[in-house]
């Protein structure tokens, strides 16, 4: 791998962003790689926009990732992907859920919400990144755990070219991180996300 692999994970507070960043960190550590990340706690967590930075590599210094420098973005909510896609390096990769959680201002205005949704592909395309869309809501449901949309996207991430951790390494870490009784549906969610990429290639 390159000296330093930078990624961002984005979504809305409560979607399990910290959980997948933990799993990636555990897997990286097991592989003898260093990890440096930065997370948001406290007030911003409560249903607000959340971005977590993660660096994997050998010699790491600053914990945050400036705009235009992440290799990959994982977005658990589509509008948040649009908000934070500027953190991707030119022609980076965005794996995004198609899930939409409307911000309050759009709850007041259904027209704006529909318009934003209709234009989302066009808007994302303006950033000239490679966009991979996953219906994580349907796949999490299929796995039998509606809260596992984050894990679906983690499965998809495992198939991204150049990502320094394999699907097996991530699954081992997942088993350590999630509560025992939820391991099975989470592994299923992971596989469904992974296959969504494999099948689309």
């Amino acid at each position, binding site marked *: 791998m390159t000296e330093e692999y930078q990624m961002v994970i984005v979504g809305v507070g409560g979607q399990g962003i910290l959980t997948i960043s933990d799993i990636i960190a555990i897997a990286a550590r097991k592989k003898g790689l260093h*990890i440096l990340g930065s997370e948001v706690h406290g007030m911003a967590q409560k*249903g607000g926009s959340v971005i977590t930075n993660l660096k994997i590599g050998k010699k790491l*210094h600053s914990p945050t*990732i*400036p705009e235009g420098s992440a290799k990959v973005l994982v977005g658990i909510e589509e509008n948040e992907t649009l908000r934070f896609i500027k953190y991707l390096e030119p022609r980076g990769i965005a794996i995004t859920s198609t899930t*939409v959680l409307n911000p309050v201002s759009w709850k007041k205005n259904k027209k704006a*919400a*529909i318009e934003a949704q209709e234009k989302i592909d066009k808007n994302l395309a303006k*950033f000239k990144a490679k966009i991979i869309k996953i219906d994580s809501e349907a796949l999490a449901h299929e796995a039998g755990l509606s809260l596992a949309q984050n894990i679906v996207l983690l499965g998809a991430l495992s198939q991204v070219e150049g990502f320094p951790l394999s699907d097996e390494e991530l699954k081992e870490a997942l088993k350590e991180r999630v509560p025992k009784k939820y391991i099975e549906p989470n592994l299923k969610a992971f596989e469904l996300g992974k296959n969504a990429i494999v099948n689309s290639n």
Partner: protein
Amino acid sequence: MGNIADLIENKEKRVLCLGNEAIARGAIEAGVQVFAAYPGTPSSEISGALIAAAAELDFYAEWSTNEKVAMEIAYAASITGIRSMTALKHVGLNVAADAFYSFMYMGCKGGFVTVVGDDPHCFSSQNEQDSRWLGVSANFIILEPSSPQEAKDFVKHAFDISEKFEAPILLRSTTRISHARADVQYYEYESGFKEGDLEKTTRFKCLPAIARANHPKLLEKMERVKEWIHESGFSVVEDDNEAEYGIITSGISYSYVKDALKSLKKTIPILKLGMVSPLDEKSILEFAQNKKNIIFIEEVDPYLEDRISALFIQNSLYPRIHGKCNGITKRYHELNSRIVAEGLIKAFGGELLSLSEIQKAVEETKDFTPFRPPLFCAGCQHRAAFYELSKVVRKRDGIFSSDIGCYSLDPWVTDTIVCMGASIGMANGFARVIKDKPIFALIGDSTFFHTGLPALANAVYHKANFNLLILDNRMTAMTGFQPNPTEDIPIEDVVKGLGVNYIVEFDPYDFENGKKTIEDALEHEGPTVIIMRKICANEWWRRTRRKGEKIEVFHTDSEVCIACGTCIVQYQCPAISWSLDTNSKDKNYTVIDPAMCTGCSVCSQICPTGAISKVE
């Protein structure tokens, strides 16, 4: 990851942890015996970790009622010869300031360490205060780590230095250290509780004659520290091979400098200061003496820049100064490696990858990414309480003085939010000048015990006419559901004891009754107290799920819903959204996410058509 087993295992190993957990481990490795703290982002996880560890290991730790009390507990332990620590956020340091300004004159015995979490960018705070100023003005020895690993190692050093010089230590972290996640090297430690004893001496009495004698002694001690740091290893010089430029930095800013230089493909001499007060004058002057330009990189205030610029003048050294003074970096918000690189380009040139394409796309799409502010959680009892309140407050054009906690998120009625306890203090003031409108103060249980009590005593004593609303959600929710005295001390007994005559209580989920209770209270001369009591919905939801119990959720009948928006637009429950079923653009209705609904029932009570009901 928040894993108590990792935190306490007495073994040398590498562990993936939060910066704050690393700091807690540092305290355990240093043999901390007494720890006390009040929670506050970004410092809370240090205390959470140590309080959990204390239950397993042989030392004492507690959540105290406020930062001043916590620091006094730790200081008392220290002067009996015991290693002690407190952790607080930057504004918490202000609360404790009355105590520590005098601690300095007396000095300590057992290592005494205060960890402060500054919050550049106000991620979870009311200001961007730079604690180094408060620290230096009080004569703290201040350490500033640049990574989670250093944070842990510095805690151990801090205890040693504190004992060597009998001096209190301030360890300054920032959000990006405290909430960084990294793999950190842990070491073995010795454990076992020791008892302390207090020496009979005049030293610990801050009386005028004694303080007058202690002040010069304190300053002389700081001079000794200054001599010692030169050899301490806290000042690190890197790549000192050119005479044109040199960078002086500390803390997290050092990490930004390293990455910025990498992206600029430049090697420039760096002086990294691990101790930022007293300053390592020898190392600084040695580093600067042959350089034409000195660049200061630090977050928020020009602390190093101002102090070291003065040092240069005092020593007839005149390098060109770059920093906040000429706009290399700003005096507000946090830095990152790109901002620092752009600043360094202003000083010595260089090139970065252009972001113009990305910035253009951001400009073109920004209207489609509306602000998503943090909100009350689904089912939050505060939302219910505020919705009831808003009906009364708005009708009467009331003045609303709020406080620090989850309830600061109120979107409806709040006029002022300042600092812990200010809701009641300021209501005392409003009551003196506003006579024709009802005045409300609102405070949570934890904040009430923190600094609300003296202000309420003042109101009773001076008969200030306002209505105090106490939101008792049974814990300190905002900072991570910490316990506080409301568990054991009934708030109604406290306010009764303080002499409040009119005290009522209601369940905020009971909407009509809540509204009426508030209306009734307004008929009475203040201060009145209205207690709105309900356990934090978020914590209740978690506990219920953990027990494996079913949560009875609600749903909307799409045929009955008239899309009036009461539940979505007005009540703003995040579990409710518009149906985005584009096939039925004509028929609009709301849907409730069963994964988020906590079954609080308030939406069903306020729905004008009765479209919302329990899922059978």
